[in-house]
């Protein structure tokens, strides 16, 4: 079978991955998505070689335990089809916790995505205005040191320049953090490091008991370098 490659036809999909699907790893997401796009019967472009695979590229992998309403992937097709049709066919083949919210032919590259915003909720018995303020102060400081594991061993790094903005407020029994973190491929900041900084600096989430303390992470916005909505 010969596939004529005049101009690459790339369909961009924005999708959500919420609820229990936060426990699905990126690798499993890729496998799952592979089956979804086959079921949806889209005109998929397959790679050449012994083991042909559809071409899919994902932006900024989400770590296990985090939900998202703004995941992006590019899917290569062999012909241009109506994006709305693609969206509805895909959604019919997905569960309610994973649905396409937008499908379009993009004018940007996935690498233009530079910043991601998150809402982190910490439910703790010790929630107070003072604790929220303390967390806020930690995240607005010029030096936010966390330990990162690397091949060469653990090292302490300053992540403050990777946090574009962060605010912490008390919301009933919950500490609510809104933050915008670097999504640049070379300096991607996992929100787990924000939690880590607060764990060390403000002793939150130190109880080893999920009935007393737990947290949730939701990725809820994607931006370009100059903080315009990524599309």
């Amino acid at each position, binding site marked *: 079978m010969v596939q004529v490659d005049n101009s690459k036809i790339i369909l961009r999909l924005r999708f959500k991955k919420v609820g229990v699907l936060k426990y*699905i790893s990126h690798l499993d997401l890729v496998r799952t998505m592979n089956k979804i796009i086959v079921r949806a019967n889209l005109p998929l472009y397959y790679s050449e070689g012994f083991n042909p695979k559809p071409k899919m590229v994902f932006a900024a992998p989400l770590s296990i335990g985090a939900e998202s309403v703004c995941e992006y992937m590019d899917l290569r097709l062999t012909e241009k089809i109506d994006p709305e049709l693609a969206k509805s066919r895909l959604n019919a083949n997905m569960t309610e916790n994973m649905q396409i919210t937008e499908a379009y032919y993009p004018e940007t590259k996935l690498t233009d995505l530079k910043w991601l915003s998150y809402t982190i909720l910490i439910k703790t018995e010790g929630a107070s205005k003072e604790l929220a303020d303390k967390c806020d102060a930690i995240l607005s400081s010029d030096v936010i040191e966390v330990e990162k594991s690397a091949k060469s061993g653990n090292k302490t790094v300053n992540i403050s320049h990777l946090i574009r903005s962060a605010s912490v407020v008390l919301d009933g029994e919950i500490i609510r953090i809104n933050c915008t973190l670097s999504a640049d491929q070379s300096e991607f900041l996992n929100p787990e490091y924000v939690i880590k900084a607060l764990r060390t600096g403000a002793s939150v989430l130190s109880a080893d008991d*999920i009935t007393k303390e737990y947290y949730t992470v939701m990725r809820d916005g994607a931006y370009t370098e100059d903080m315009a909505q990524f599309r």
Partner: protein
Amino acid sequence: MHNEKLSSVLRSVQKPGRYIGGEYNSIIKDKDTVKCRFAFCFPDTYEIGMSNLGVRILYDVINKSPDIWCERVYAPWTDMKEKMEEYSIPLCAVESGDAIKEFDMVAFSLQYELCYTTALAMLKMADIPLYQKDRGEDTPIVIGGGPCVYNAEPVAPFFDLINVGEGEEVLVEICNLYNRMKDAGEYTRASFLREASHIEGVYIPSLYEVSYNADGTIFAYTPLYPDVPKKIKKRIVADLDNAPYPEKLVMPYIETVHDRIVLEIYRGCIRGCRFCQAGMVYRPIREKSPEVLCKSAKCLYDNSGYEEISLISLSISDYSRLPELTDKLLEWTDEKRVSLSLPSLRIDSFSEELMKKVSSVRTGGITFAPEAGTQRLRDVINKNVTEEDLMRSVGIAFRGGKSNVKLYFMNGLPTETLTDIEGIAELATKVVGAYFKMPKPERPRGVGVTVSVSCFIPKPFTPFQWEKQDTLESLSEKQAHLKECITDRRIKYSYHDAKASRIEGVLARGDRRLAPVLALLTDEGAFLEAWDEFFDYDRFTSALEKCGVDADFYTTRGFGLDEVLPWDIIDIGVTKEFLRRERDKAYEGKTTPSCAEKCSGCGANKLGGKNRWCK
């Protein structure tokens, strides 16, 4: 899954995707409107249970009834089990996240003997009393089924009801009876079980008394009431073409063991290998037609997105219409980039043509099972393949680009001597030789032969059911001898743990006196023992000792030809006379032709069933 506590512990366990449910094609019903909630439990991990064809079929069949909601339950990994204990989370069903203690039926698929303690541990985690006699009116009916229940005696005291044979029809009949009795206000556990005992293929262990002779052998099984059948006849589905087969598969988010479409081609086996339990208990042979299979495959592809179809049955190449089926499938699979795989090939029917049709690029290996090292012993076990067959097959495999050949054998077969052991090494050496005899340009690079040897267990309902199981000492001597005989570094040798086989032998051949041993092991924390890392031989032997049970009695002693066997309560259709005849022929070194060549009068034809071979 809507269980919040369960959801929040998932952050701290390995592979949380095992526990979340919500898979595409999983079935959600309104729990307030269904009449019967059915928990289908698999006593092993999600990855293994999700791959099981029986579970896939029965989940689909049971859920076709609007009155019944069948949900799946798997054994958690040990880290999750600890968390569940820490936070008092009972065993839950995947779909609803509800505790299975609240269900009407809790059924276990018993696939291998070493899963027994896992099943019991799951009952414990669910807070359901282990012993049938201790269960109250409000506890679920605990059901057992699967290949192990052809001798369910070691676990019989833990089950309310046992489904002997194929479950497609029986399980629904059981639930319908339950619903009817509940609706009519006639339900009590006792009255339901008594009534259920009249359904063909249903065994209610509590309705029988087992008595023993002074020497410890069984005297008799006595039904407690005259209306309870003296023997339980295995149930089969007569017409597989018209039997329900899933059109949709529950799609796991995480990778499972067999993550592909599995197409069941036929049930039963035309061969009569004398060591093989499956070959006897799944008789009579019933084939599906290529038309039905193709329709089924296309439908499953459309609904799953899997790009691999595996054709399964006990021996694929014995399917009478295989070329027709593969041609018909290849009409569309090639274009859709779907590959075919055939996992069970016999060396006497392996062909170049067949290999070209199956996925050949992805794996570099192929497996054959000569089972024994010499022709004499292969005749004893009625394997009916020759060295010539093997050499021809490996030649085809090498020419087809497969450089790794895996050979399966068994140690401890009846009449086996050290000459037979040496024969294994010689056969493997000849396979390596066959590679080097080929002209260099024709052969793939880097030949490798793996010799994998398991330990023979004389299984119930086989011609060898009366045989003595080989001792640990003798097996380890044989294993060591084979190791010495294999000198070629291109031959890799691996063998099964004889200790695990001994325990499997005890459980496969045991009677009800094993139940306290299993209960004790469960109390001592035995769990996921089918996993090497959790199997503990010493714990097993000490439990046997504490309960006063002698493992040799069930294994190395052998059973007398006139003795009442623990599994004599079950009628699989194949007669004891046939098994006895086959045993005699084994000792004479005489083979028996396959059903395709000549009917040997095994008796299974009396079960009925639409098939090509039996009259």
